[in-house]
């Protein structure tokens, strides 16, 4: 019939693409990445240290997984052991100055709380080290909701002492339809709510990642979905971080993008979404780092204004001041407004200008 992959599920298609990628061998003693940045913390701008641990990788991603996620290929070619992981941590901590206050953000390309990815021994080692380090003011770890259990949180809190501990969950959207059928994330909004309620009871805060414009979703639908999702998660989340879908290597989204069937979101869309969310919920922290902004693979407007608009979004994330998003304008906004209106009605032909 009309489609090339009539009999294939989305997961099978993602897995097919995954199986064709190669993971480059690299030292297991060095993290996939670590870098310093700035974030808003209790009203002040403070340093952050982001560490992406090189692990076995996301169990969900290895079995197919999310349509936009290329982080799977950041995992290790051979399983790192506990000492490897501690070496990765120590390498990263070398980047900190002696007396600086810092928030640690831990990613693994999968779930920090998945004991098959970060063993219980490593979990203890990493969190104890961070708990004991006086410079570290807050620890955020990313995980899928199924690993957020009473015991995992109690254990973690025991290691970090009285430091603020936060879980970060990539919910992407409050729509189960989109999360399951477009993103292929495999869990429901209810699973997320449960995780966040367990966390709340333990005094652990929740940061939620939303995804602007998963595949098959029009520009207008994407904005509406993000705004609706933000409304839906406000009771369960202290911070909302909006990821702008970009085209990562070895993903279904990349395949679609190559075939002109996907366009990353316009930066105007995130500006509109932030304005709507922040004015509705002034107290919630809304952040967005437009990764890859301005490139074909990243969120973009036209060549003239992408940089300016992306910078305004970054400034907003650090200041939470909506005024920085006012007075942005460009001729391309006219096209975006049309796209927003017409992209819903293309019946499978996203407007990719």
């Amino acid at each position, binding site marked *: *019939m*009309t*489609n090339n992959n009539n009999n294939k599920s989305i997961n099978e*298609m993602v897995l097919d693409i995954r199986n064709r990628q190669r993971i480059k061998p690299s030292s297991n003693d060095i993290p996939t990445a670590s870098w310093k940045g700035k974030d808003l913390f209790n009203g002040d701008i403070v340093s952050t240290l982001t560490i992406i641990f090189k692990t076995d990788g996301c169990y969900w991603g290895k079995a197919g997984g999310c349509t936009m996620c290329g982080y799977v290929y950041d995992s290790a070619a051979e399983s790192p052991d506990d000492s490897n992981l501690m070496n990765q941590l120590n390498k990263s901590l070398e980047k900190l100055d002696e007396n600086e206050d810092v928030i640690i953000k831990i990613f693994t390309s999968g779930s920090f709380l998945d004991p098959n990815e970060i063993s219980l021994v490593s979990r203890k080692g990493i969190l104890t080290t961070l708990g004991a380090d006086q410079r570290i003011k807050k620890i955020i770890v990313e995980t899928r909701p199924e690993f957020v259990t009473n015991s995992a949180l109690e254990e973690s809190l025991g290691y970090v002492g009285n430091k603020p501990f936060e879980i970060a969950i990539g919910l992407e959207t409050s729509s189960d339809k989109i999360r399951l059928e477009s993103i292929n994330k495999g869990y429901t909004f209810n699973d997320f709510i449960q995780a966040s309620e367990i966390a709340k009871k333990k005094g652990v805060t929740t940061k939620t990642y939303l995804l602007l414009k998963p595949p098959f979703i029009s520009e207008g639908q994407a904005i509406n979905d993000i705004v609706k999702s933000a409304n839906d998660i406000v009771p369960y989340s202290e911070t909302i971080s909006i990821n702008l879908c970009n085209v990562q290597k070895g993903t279904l989204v990349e395949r679609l993008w190559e075939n002109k069937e996907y366009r990353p979101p316009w930066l105007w869309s995130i500006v509109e979404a932030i304005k709507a969310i922040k004015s509705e919920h002034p107290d919630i922290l809304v952040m967005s780092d437009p990764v890859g902004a301005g490139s074909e693979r990243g969120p973009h407007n036209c060549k003239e204004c992408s940089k300016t608009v992306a910078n305004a979004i970054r400034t907003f994330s650090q200041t939470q001041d909506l005024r920085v998003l006012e007075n942005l304008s460009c001729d391309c906004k006219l*096209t975006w407004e049309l796209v927003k209106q017409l992209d*819903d009605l*293309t019946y*499978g*032909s996203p407007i990719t*200008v």
Partner: protein
Amino acid sequence: MTKYFEIIDKNGSARLGNLKLKQNIRTPALIDTPGIKDFESLFIDLGSMWNSSNDELIKIIKHIQEKGSCENLVIVPHQIFTPTVGNIKSSFLDDISNSIPIGLVYDGYKKDNVDMYIISGSGIYSKNARRFFEQILEIKSNVPFDTAIYAPAVALPQNIATLTYLGVDLFDSTAVLIASSQDMYLTTYGFYDINQLSELPCMCQDCSSLSHQNVMSMTRKERFSFLKKHNINVIKAELANVRQKIKDGCLREYVESQSSSSPLLTSLLRHSDNNPTYMEKITEIVRSRTLIANTSDSLHRIEFSRFSQRTLDRYSPPDNSVCLILPCSARKPYSFSQSHQKYIKALGKYRKYIHEIILSSPLGVIPRELELTYPAAHYDIAVTGHWSEDEKKIVADRLSSYLKYKSGSKKIVAHVEGVYREICERVSLELNIDIIYTATGKTTSKDSLSNLRKTVSLLLDESSNFRNLEPRKMLKSIADYQFGSKIGEILVPNNSIIKGPYPKYQVYIDQDQIATLIPQYGILALTIEGAKLIADENKYTVYIDDFIPKGSILVPGIINVDPDIRPKDEVIVKGPRVICVGRAVMSAYEMMNSSYGIAVDIRHVQKLDNS
């Protein structure tokens, strides 16, 4: 036709339709995309399952149903993945009353009561003509012939002619609006960046009231609103143009010239020509306009390949010993031309003992008896004496097949020059047969003509007394060509009498008129007597239910049809108590794949005496 969509006229796969909503929409037509979201507009999208819950969708459907209007076409809720993934879902079709006009995103299956199918993903195929063509072809071959086809997010003034040619009925303003926002000034052959134009190549009201200076001093918003007006005007004018071309039956000629403005369009046309099965099934057998074949793509027209194939399959050459190959002429029928008059005069009394065939580009081989038959006398080409390699190959292949299967043990004489001779030589080499060439320069020179006469006279043996060129043989050949081999023997037997001056021949058997030659198309029209004669052969027959037709046969009355029937074919209609003759309006394919509409225009009806 469905309850709300009616095909008024056709040209190949292209249709002129009428969509009966709040107002009648003449298709091919443009849908105003932004309007689709408005519940008062002609086309209403009920929503996407990606972002609307089932409850919300049901509420919307209820709201629309309560209005109880059949004035707007509703598009059934859908969840669409892009073509790489496919897997389109629609739902609530069963919840929507079938008394209102319904549009459905095509998901691989046809459904009842759908008036319009949407080609999903059509807008992204601008770089992939093959996939686009396959997609259109698949929908066209799967859904009822008489439902409307909507290709969203793709229409530009440049491409609607070709897409209509392939069978699309509805377009929308999406691509035109986006282009307008990007400073694109659209034309039917492409676009200009408005900023690069030193004058506006259009004299429509919106353009002629503006100078270049005015345009340059506009803000982007003002430019958009001007471009939007011009661009929408251009596409609407082009739609009117395309509708007229369909009416005039010459869309193909227009598409050949117009599609050359874009590789995508040329590719679409070529994919279509390379996969002619569907198109052949619905292409008219004759048409009244001269067939203009001036591009390299014209060589691949269905009319030509069909003529060539039918000649091979159905035509029986006369039983004599010499086959003479002659070049074609600009004047049609060929025998009316000055050159052919000279050949005929030169052949004199020998002419009736030989089998004449005419070699022509791009038609190939035309037996003299079929020179009146469409399209042999109905085409026009640019004559320069220079043929492309493609042209030579096609004609050589057709001559080769003809000589291989039809010339038997005949001696072959070719009275040709130049490229015709080159082709004959190629074929003679390929088939390893001897061809005697009689032209010693120009075919009409005195020497050539006397050589032709001499050669032919020497080749004919005393026993060859078959009189070939009598009108009876011509009508018999046409009957074979039209209805299938051997039918000629029944309709035009040796005891038949041919009346009337050439070419207005009438066939009689024992005082009964059997058939008339329609000179305009070179095909036969049957009388009831003629129909009865060949009724048992079951060729070109439409079988109907037990009723006595008046004027025309409608699709619902049809039980079965001969799959060979094409639009404008002469057909026999048989019912339990009746036999009729008429002219097919639809092809067999359309008759079997439509729900309503006129299938046959009846000329004569006769009740059968069953008692």
